[in-house]
């Protein structure tokens, strides 16, 4: 390996001028080959497991395979997927989950971060606490919620509600409460990471800005509105995008908490529908069509969002 050494630019100047052009070209070729030798492992993996599947997804979605013979079928898979009774329901559920997760899960971590940032004591402990659920394997955390969501009065949530003289709920077994239950579980399990990211960006806000705000007589809420939020808007806007993209891929929560489809399809998400089509109905092509639709929807959303979102240079 060592004889393929890249000579440093500094050493190039004098002796190289005397060398033949042929030698220089050969060395350049060697350098390039070395570079590609270092790249090859990753490039092969990206090729097989990232770039090729992207193309394959769309090719597959226009094909069907019967007894080992693959034929082009035009938009047929899309039509099949479209006419599936669960299709509209799955998109509605997924969007509902996304919106609800934004209402509950978007502002909450930010305000928790703002609150925690004010404390001068127990900082490490509080950070540790909020991040703890993130370290649970998702299945563990979700079985914990399944246990707590027990629709009878043996469940801890219903027990707490009952002691507080509030109406109890059937949680994931009731159609209306399925999505809120999934959002509560998902927010509790995932919020920690977002809180820590906000905390890091809150610490970059110069203290003088708050001082200036105070001289202008701003109270806590106006400080948050006029200093904290504008100063963290880039990260707030990025987390919004990441959260929407993540929640639109809802899958584990309905699978474990609501057996996949919930009460009469109240939990079915787009990714679950895709999974069901591929592995219960053995229709990989239809599943690819669904996956492709979700991919396009999220790509278009991300593209439009990044165009409209605040940019760094507007400071």
């Amino acid at each position, binding site marked *: 390996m*060592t004889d*393929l*050494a*890249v000579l440093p*630019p500094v*050493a190039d100047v004098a002796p190289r001028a005397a060398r033949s052009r042929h030698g220089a070209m050969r060395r350049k070729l060697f350098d*390039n*080959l070395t*570079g590609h030798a*270092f*790249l090859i*492992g*990753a490039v092969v*993996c*990206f090729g*097989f*497991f*990232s770039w090729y*599947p992207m193309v*394959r*997804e769309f090719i597959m979605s226009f094909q069907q395979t019967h007894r080992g013979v693959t034929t082009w079928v035009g938009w047929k898979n899309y039509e099949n997927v479209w006419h599936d009774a669960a299709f509209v329901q799955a998109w509605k559920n997924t969007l509902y989950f996304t919106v609800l997760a934004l209402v509950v899960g978007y502002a909450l971590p930010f305000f928790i971060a703002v609150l925690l940032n004010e404390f001068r*004591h127990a900082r490490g*402990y509080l*950070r540790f*606490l*909020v*991040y*703890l659920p993130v*370290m*649970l394997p998702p*299945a*563990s*955390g979700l079985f914990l919620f399944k*246990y707590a969501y027990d629709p*009878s009065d*043996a469940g*801890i949530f219903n*027990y707490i509600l009952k002691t507080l003289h509030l109406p109890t709920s059937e949680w994931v077994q009731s159609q209306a409460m399925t999505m809120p239950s999934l959002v509560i579980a998902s927010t*509790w399990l995932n919020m920690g990471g977002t809180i820590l*990211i906000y905390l890091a960006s809150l*610490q970059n*806000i*110069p203290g003088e800005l708050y*001082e200036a705000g*105070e001289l202008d007589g701003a109270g806590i809420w106006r400080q948050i509105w006029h200093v*904290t939020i504008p100063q963290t808007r*880039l*990260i707030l*806007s990025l987390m919004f995008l990441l959260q929407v993209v993540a929640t639109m*891929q809802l899958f*584990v929560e309905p699978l474990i908490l609501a057996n996949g489809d919930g009460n009469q399809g109240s939990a079915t998400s787009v*990714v679950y529908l895709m999974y069901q089509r*591929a592995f219960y109905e053995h229709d*990989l092509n239809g599943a*690819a069509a669904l*996956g*492709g639709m*979700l*991919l396009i929807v999220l790509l278009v959303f*991300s593209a439009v969002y990044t165009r409209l979102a605040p940019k760094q240079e507007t400071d």
Partner: protein
Amino acid sequence: MAVSSGTRTIISPARLGRKRGKRIYWGLLILVILAFSVAFLGPLYWMVTGGLKTGREIAQVPPTLFPQDPNLTAYKDAWTDLNLGQLLLNTVIYAFGALAFQLVFDVAAAYALSKLRPVLGNAILGLILATLMVPATTLVIPQYVTVIDLPIVHWHMLDSPWAIWLPAVANAFNIFLLKRFFDSIPQELLSAAAVDGAGPLRTLLWIILPISRPILGVMSILSLTAVWKDFLWPLLVEPGENTKTLNVGIYAFSKGLTQNTIIAAAVIAAVPTIVFFLFLQRNIMAGLTAGGLKG
């Protein structure tokens, strides 16, 4: 303590210093500590004690806050019925194997893209970074089809660790993190090494890697937790009884088991990650913001 204990935040130090301010601060702090402890440790307590209850006690109305007759039966049942030892071993092999492949291939690639810069390097970098925009779950179907019959070589990877190890290498975020770090290493350092006759491999091993320890640590933590927590992909590509991950296994084997056994299994599955977190707490939390998520 924390880095920023000196800088001021919304509430001014002057107001905190006053008697009333102090009282409110301490009251609020104690309230928050109590509320957060209940909200985040309470569920874990509920889980651990749930596993200590008998099948009858766990279904009892009203639920008991303390197990009446705590015993480890459910934990023992969970360990044997769900084959947790095997699941744990599988997960360890998948996670550390994936990390090893990422450390070799992603580090080499990022080094090539940052320092060796061969022709078409930038085009390849662009294609790699473009995959960051593609949400992972939307591609699982064609990825699954690829894994059951790898094109050209016709390799059936299902139920083998390779189905987790190799796709893990295609991680654009790793390449991004590493390349950005390597870019910050001054070229003179590498030129000096080259004058001493070191080739690219030796430069990478003896110059670049030792200074890159922090970023390699961050990458390792991210990589291990990603494989450990992944659900959909291992559900698809490790369908065998003896090849499942811990995460998927407790889901797949939970059917027909009693509530207390499932909860005990969930507790056992959580122990390794919680221990990992207790030991590497600071690094894990610091790694979270290392992605330069500052916009």
